[in-house]
């Protein structure tokens, strides 16, 4: 154990990586909160919860309170998903084969929350605490590895990871977002400690741990390096590598605060802080809203610079597509808005042409410029091709895994190979940069996601 003299915190490991890339995209959010109008409707999207089959508890038109369950998981009925606001169920949107896509809740002016008894949570045993977290709808904030699904409450993880340092393009700064909520954060960490036999690990930025250095009951580690240095898969590999049958849980920093806040008030905390980012946004800033809020009133507060924009719940590498009249996701702390790139470029395939396009390849001068603020758009810059170029994925992939071999094993659905090559240690987001950088334009995240779905169905 090293006692870091700069920050006076005990650090068990300094994780460093050279593999990866920093994408210098224009549109980082200024550290200022902007006020927005409250949203009229809020949405729960079952697709936000990977691997969950929803079973509805409410019908259209029924009244609902904040923190009251809207649906539960068919496989594990104890996992409930609760409403972020009080009001009534406005509509349930279904897609193909009656799949539930969105449950839209109309909010009413009088706020009314489900109350849980939390006064003696510190004295509860593990099972009682689990029940409290499950009943209150806070359980979906806890994810598990392998697979990145919502944690199975019947299991005990060998470690719990919370990383406050993310490296995704234009990612929010959690020290800024959470610095008024340090007590809730500490509460949340203490609760997580009760759920695991072993450690809770807390990752911080090696250059600036901020307020997180004061958190106790955790094993501190620091992270430095290029994206995806902030991805928890790398931290797990370094500190508690996943073996067959192991479980590790992960929780996002703001969700730790929400858990802590619940444990001190007894009310579900729907608060969500969002960094509005991207080169379509004129003056990107932070906003505070609630989970599942409408995007329109939020984005109306900002001037969008282009006519056709892509609105993304999350960052430009791993986020999910939304639209101006869509809703915020359940977990993301970031919205990215970038222009659509549906235009043609004459002879754009010539090397060293169109150097204004951000590229990690030496066939463009854009790397040499070291420009800080590249304009990006959604053009694929080519077409999908067979896998030809080798070695480029490894450059942006710091895990001790052969990414191309794993992708190929997933394509041919060779379960044994996938297992041996490390499918348990990755989530699709780890392949975001590979999606971006690979010459053949293959959809690595999609392939890995399908591979993980196959593993869940076949192996469990």
């Amino acid at each position: 154990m090293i006692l870091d003299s700069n920050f006076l915190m005990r650090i068990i490991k300094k994780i460093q990586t050279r593999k990866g890339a920093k994408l210098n995209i224009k549109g980082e959010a200024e550290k200022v909160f902007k006020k927005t109008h409250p949203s009229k409707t809020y949405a729960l999207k079952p697709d936000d919860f990977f691997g969950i089959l929803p079973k509805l508890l409410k019908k259209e038109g029924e009244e609902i309170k904040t923190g009251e369950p809207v649906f539960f998981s068919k496989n594990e009925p104890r996992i409930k998903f609760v409403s972020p606001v009080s009001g009534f169920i406005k509509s349930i949107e279904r897609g193909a084969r009656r799949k539930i896509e969105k449950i839209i809740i109309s909010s009413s002016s009088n706020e009314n929350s489900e109350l849980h008894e939390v006064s003696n949570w510190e004295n509860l045993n593990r099972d009682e605490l689990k029940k409290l977290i499950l009943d209150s709808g806070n359980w979906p904030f806890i994810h598990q590895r392998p697979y990145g699904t919502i944690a199975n409450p019947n299991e005990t993880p060998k470690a719990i990871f919370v990383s406050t340092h993310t490296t995704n393009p234009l990612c929010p700064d959690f020290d800024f977002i959470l610095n008024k909520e340090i007590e809730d954060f500490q509460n949340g960490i203490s609760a997580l400690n009760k759920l695991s036999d072993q450690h809770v690990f807390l990752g911080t930025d090696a250059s600036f741990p901020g307020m997180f250095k004061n958190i106790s009951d955790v094993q501190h580690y620091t992270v430095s390096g290029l994206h995806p240095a902030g991805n928890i898969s790398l931290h797990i590999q370094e500190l508690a590598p996943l073996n067959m049958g192991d479980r590790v849980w992960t929780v996002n920093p703001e969700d730790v605060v929400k858990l802590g806040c619940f444990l001190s008030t007894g009310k579900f905390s729907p608060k969500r802080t969002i960094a509005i980012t991207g080169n379509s946004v004129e003056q990107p800033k932070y906003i505070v809203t609630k989970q599942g809020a409408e995007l329109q009133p939020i984005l109306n507060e900002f001037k969008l610079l282009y006519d056709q924009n892509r609105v993304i719940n999350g960052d430009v590498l791993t986020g999910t597509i939304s639209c101006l009249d869509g809703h915020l996701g359940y977990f993301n702390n970031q919205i990215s808005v970038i222009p659509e790139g549906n235009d043609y470029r004459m002879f754009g395939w010539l090397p060293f042409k169109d150097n204004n396009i951000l590229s990690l390849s030496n066939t463009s001068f854009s790397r040499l410029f070291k420009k800080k603020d590249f304009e990006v758009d959604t053009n694929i810059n080519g077409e999908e091709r067979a896998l030809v170029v080798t070695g480029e994925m490894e450059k942006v992939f710091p895990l001790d895994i052969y990414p191309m071999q794993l992708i190929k094993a997933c394509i041919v659905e060779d379960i044994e190979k996938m297992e041996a090559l490390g499918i348990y240690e990755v989530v699709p987001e780890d392949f975001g940069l590979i999606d971006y950088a690979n010459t053949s334009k293959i959809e690595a995240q999609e392939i890995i996601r399908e591979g993980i779905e196959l593993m869940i169905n076949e192996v469990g």
Partner: protein
Amino acid sequence: MNALRKQLDTLKKPFGKGQKFEKFAPAFTAFETFLFVPNHITKKGAHIRDAVDLKRTMVTVIIALLPALIYGIYNTGYQYYIQTDEPFTFIDAFIHGAWKIVPMIIVSYVVGLSIEFGFAVYRGHEVNEGYLVTGLLIPMIMPVDIPLWMVGISTAFAVLIAKEAFGGTGMNILNPALTARAFAFFAYPTYMSGNKVWVSEASNVDGISGETILGSLAAGQDVNYSMIQMFQGSIPGSIAETSTLWVVVGALILILTGIGSWRIITGGIIGAAIMGILFNLWGANALMSFSWMNHLIVGGFAFGIVFMATDPVSAAQTNKGKWIYGILTGIFCIMIRVFNPAYPEGVMLAILLMNVFAPTIDHYVVNGNINKRKKRWINAQELKTA
């Protein structure tokens, strides 16, 4: 540009879904995307994508090949004129070479691309750009006087048997261009070896002959070229492989752009140098005592290791594997040169041999990672039970 774009959009209509020529859409798209990078946007996965694509990658390789090709065209004329004792200028030599080589390039592209387009339409996938490089490489590594129909048949063989039969671009085991050469080498040996094929018109005009340096050494003859000549490439040989100087320029382009694997190239040079030094120490025949440095700059070694061994599809794919693959290619190249007088140049066979072994090398490298993981699992299991 807008007018052209509009024209293309009108032309494109009959190739659309449910239209008359839908089946031929891949062929039209190939032409369209040559003019314009398409307006496709991301639908899943990362929302932004790098500017690099396979077209750009392949065009970079072609740019890297051009210096060697241009010198090869000049050298073809140069070798012809110095033997006929006619006075000549640089332009004369270049025109003579171009007259010989451009038709070969055209035949290679027409035959190869026809097959590629045919398969793309038949299989309903896009035309891959890989052939742009293969199609240029094939004539570059042939002797200058090979009849055009042989170029055509070799090309067809390579594309059909070495590439499409395995599933097309990205799936082939052997380097297609080298397969074309190997096919010609074994099918038409009289056109591919001996002392009458390396200089333009040698078989037609009396008094012209020209053995390659390695051929002379294998036949026990003396070599009268200086090291400078060998390095700059004013020597007989296959069309574009003679000039190590311009191959090095190509290698720099490939390495600096990150398109060619520096691991394979460096590994190959190390392997060949080690083997060359060992044979120098042994020194039992003319080829063994031929300086190891000269081994690196004569024959097709430099060209092969820079442009053929680095083909990412047929080479090893892991970084460790690339080192092993490169070093072994170098070793085998010199070994074949020295031990087998029937094949004075070993680089073609060395690379093809290593192409076959590349998946095996990768298998063991990747297995190292797999075993490490399994060991960790077993250790954890033991800890739990203990």
